[in-house]
Structure formats: C-alpha cells, structure tokens
C-alpha cells in the first residue's frame, strides 16, 4: 500500500509539473490542478500516527490521526476555489488575446 501511494504521488507530481511547464496556458492551468491534487495525496500520506481504530471511536487501540484529513479537506476547498478562479481568468484572457500560447499573452512586457 505504502509503495503504491508513493508511486501514485510521484506520478501525479511528474505529470502535473510537466504540464505546468508547457507553453499552452490552458495546459499549464490543468497542470496546476494536477499538482495541487498530488499535494493533497501527499498530505494524506503524512499521517504521523498510523492507527488501527478510527479517531474518536470507543474501541481500544492505537487511534489514527484525523488531522491530515482535516488539512486535506481545507486544501481541497481552497484549491477548488483557486482553480475556478484560474479558469474564469483564462476564459477572459483567451477571449481577449485569441491565443492559448503563453508567449503571446504579453500585453504588459515591452
């Protein structure tokens, strides 16, 4: 399980970072979403105390750590909002500049 988790986090990071560096702005936005999901998965795997019973249960035993899940929940909500904001800005930019090429969006650099 551990190795599977590590491999999938690594794969998501690889794909996300590769897309993030592409020239197409829509691809790079999608890369951003994939990378933030890779981070969420990474946060899931950092539970410092791997328990055998769930947190707040009555059963006796090593309890699992609920905090990483709370962190992920917050991070997911924030990255969802951020991605929606990125997409709406991209909509305006692609309508105004009529291009998906990073290098063509340069109204500010002279």
């Amino acid at each position, binding site marked *: 399980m551990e190795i599977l988790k590590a491999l999938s986090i690594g794969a998501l990071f690889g794909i996300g970072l590769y897309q*993030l560096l592409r020239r197409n702005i829509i691809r790079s936005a999608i890369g951003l979403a994939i*990378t933030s999901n890779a981070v969420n998965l990474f946060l899931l795997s*950092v539970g410092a105390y791997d328990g055998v019973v769930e947190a707040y249960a009555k059963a006796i035993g090593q309890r699992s750590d609920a905090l990483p899940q709370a962190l992920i929940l917050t991070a997911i909500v924030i990255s969802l909002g*951020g991605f929606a904001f990125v997409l709406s*800005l991209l909509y305006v930019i692609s309508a105004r500049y009529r291009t998906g090429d990073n290098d063509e969006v340069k109204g500010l650099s*002279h």
Partner: protein
Amino acid sequence: MPTDILVLLPVLVPPTAAAVAVLLRSHRRVQAAWAFGAMLTSFVCSSLLLWTVWSNGRPIVYQLGNWPAPFGISLVGDLLSATMAVMCQLVLAGGFLYALGCRDQCAQYPAFYPLFLMLATGLTGAMLTGDLFNLFVFAELLVFSGAALTAVSDDKFGTEAAYKYFYISFVASIALLLASGSLYVSYGTLNLADLAQRIAADPSPPLVLPAMVLLIIFFMVKGAVMPFHFWQPDFHTAAPTPVHAVLSSVVVKLGIYGFLRMTTLLFVEQAETIRAVLVVVGAVGVWFGGLGAVGTYDAKRMLAYSTLGQLGFILVAIGWGTPLALAAAIVYAFNHSLLKAAMLMLAGSVASRAPVKTAAFAAITGLGKKLPLAGVLFLLGGMGLAGIPPLNGFVGKLMLFSSGVEAQAYLPLAAIGLAGIVTLVYVFRAFQRIWWTPLPEDVKPKPYGDRLIAPALLIALSLALGIWAEPLINLAQATVAWMATPEWYVRAVLGG
C-alpha cells in the same frame, strides 16, 4: 475586558465588516463609511495590541475555541507580529483612504470595499497566526482577494496581471503545503512554538531540510525577492492604485516577516545557512531592482522594481543577523512601507490626470506642472527612499550600514552602498520627467484626479518618524531582544 481578545479583534473585525458591507451594496456612501470605519477600528485594535504587548512585556496568546496550544489554533501577538500588524493596518488604512478619493471605475464596484477588507484580514491574520497551516489559509485569502481586486482594474491588462500573480502565488502555496506536510510527518505538530521546540531538540529527520527550502521559496515568492520576482512589475503596471500601493508596500513584508520568524524561531540552529542565502539574494536583488528601475518605461513599474531593491537591503540586514542588523531590518521595513505606499499613490494620482489613464512616462511627461503639491511629496518620498535626511529612510539606512560595519561584512556593504546611489538616479529621473519637463502642446490633462490626502498623511508620518525616530528604534530594539530568546515565545504559547 480580557486582554487576549486584542489579538483576535484585528483578524475578526475586517471579515465581519466585509460581510455586512456586501449587504450594504446598494448604498454606496453608507458602505464606504462602514468599511472605512471597520478598517480604522481594526487599526486601533492592533495599535492597542502593540501597546499592551509592549507595556506588559509578554506575548498575548489567544487559543481559538479554547483548545490548548499544540492541538488547537493559536493566535499569537508577540512584539514582532504586533509591530508588523500595526504597520500593515496603518498602510491598509491609508490605501483605503486613497480608494475613497480615487476616480477609478473599479472602486465603484459593490464588491471593491469588501474585497479590500478581506485583503486586510488575510494579511493581518498571516502575521498574527501561530500555526503553519493557518498561515496557508490566511495567505490564500490574501492572494484571492488581491488577485480579484487586480482583475477588475480599469487597465485592460488587469486580467493578465491578476492571472500571473495568482498563478505564481498558487504554486508558492503548493510549496507551503508541501513544507507543512513534511514538518507534520517529522514532528506531528504544526504549531509554530511546538515546532520550534521540537526542531531545536532533534533536527535529524530527513524531511526538515526540504521543508526549510520550501518555506524559503514560499516567503521569497510572497516577498517578490529577486529570483521569484517576475510577477511583481507586471502586476504593478496594471493593478488599481489603492491595491498595488498596499501590495507593494506591506504584502511583500509577509516575506520579510517569514524570514525573521524562520531565522529566530523555527530554524535557529540552521539559521546560518538561511542567512548566507539571504545575504547573496539580497545583494543581487539590490542591484537587479535598482538597475531594473532605471531602465523601465513606466512610473509604477519603476517603483515596483525599486521595491525589489529596497527589499534586498532588508534581506541583507536579516542575513547579517546581529541584533543591530535585525533592528535595522525592522526599522527599514516600517519606513519602506510608508514611503513606497505614498510614492505609488503619487504616481497613481499623476496617472489619473493623464488623458488615458496610464503611468507610462511617455504619457505623463510634464503632467506635474498642474500638481505642485504632488511634486513636493514625490520629492520628499524619493529622498526618503534614497536615504537622505530628514526623512525616516535615512534612519533605516544609517542603522543598516552601521550594523554592516559592526558585522565586518565589508563586501556586501560596499555592494549595497554603491547601489544606494542608483536609487537617487531613478527617483530623480522620474521627478524630472514628470515635474520639470514642459507639458507637450497637444496633451490636455484632465482637470480632476485622485485626492492627495492619503499620500500626504503617509509622507507627513515618515517625516515625523525621521525627525523623532526614537520610539520606532526603541520598539525595534525591544523586538530584537524578544527575537533573541525564542523560549519566551514558546513558553507563552505552550504555557508552563
């Protein structure tokens, strides 16, 4: 009234007022008065916080929901974060005052003032929080409202600037998340005080170094430090004046605050490494920002590059790390906030007179003939930035250079000392083009523009702090004394 509520109020008042301000959207004047009142209230609260902390001599801690320290989220008002919070709230209130008197269309949008209040929440919260993940949440709040405020700008390139800013900040937030995950897996806590204690006790876990590097990256992007600065000049060219006046002066100080915290609380043992990086990055940034400012085509862009240079001075001071240098860094940061906000407001106010609103030198040449007051203020502000007495910029520079002599760091001292002259070059070049060049015949400036009251107040304050600098210097020295003993901070948060 229990004193610990004072830490909560600067973080609580702005968002509550923002929610009410949204309800008041159909009454423009009521909404403006309400939001400005909230901004002033929260400034008064943070000043009270600073006053109480300073006179009591110990940090004020508020445990949210009464959860005891390492388990819940704590808001900590020690002298460093209270000073930074007061500085932020002061400039934010100035920016708000400018927004009330500015002629931008975007300041008329019903969501403008609420978003500005949320920006204030994010910034103050990030300074006052004692929890790494909470820092992420507040930083995101800050970025979201800042980017939204930029996207609605009158400038047609506002969306492009907002996109660049948001995208890069989002990547920085990913770095912060990775850092907090790495620290959590190593130590099982995210509370700054608890982390400091545990890192000092056992710095061996393998993920500590990556976490440190990722935190440095996060704060460098927030502070627009040299290799991570690329969003900043573009952002300033297009953002509305009240917004970038705040962003270039106090939001970048989040990076400064972060580095001060990292070197004196979280990574005290490893601080030497961080400091070595900061001196190099700062000295390069001073030159890069200065030369970039000389070579630019736009007054606001020039001031944005100048921020890179001025932050370089502060980073070099943090890098030297002696008590005098740290005090110099705090004084310099405070002064730079006031001066840079005022200068950007003046540039924006000149730009608002141009036939088409822009701060490009080609469009604003000679416009100053009608604005003598703005000219006086711009000259004073420029002298402050360059470090000429009697403005407060001189005090900061003097402290900085004497700390460099004391630390015997002559090579970086020579580098940044020479670069100080570049500041004079670009400031006076801009002054000459705007106020000394005659107005071209075919240009018809607008008869009205943004009000000058906010920059006038800020310049007056920096003049006062330049002549009577003692309170600020005493405050900075007391802050440094606290930073030198992180045990006080840890004990105040964790109890015992």
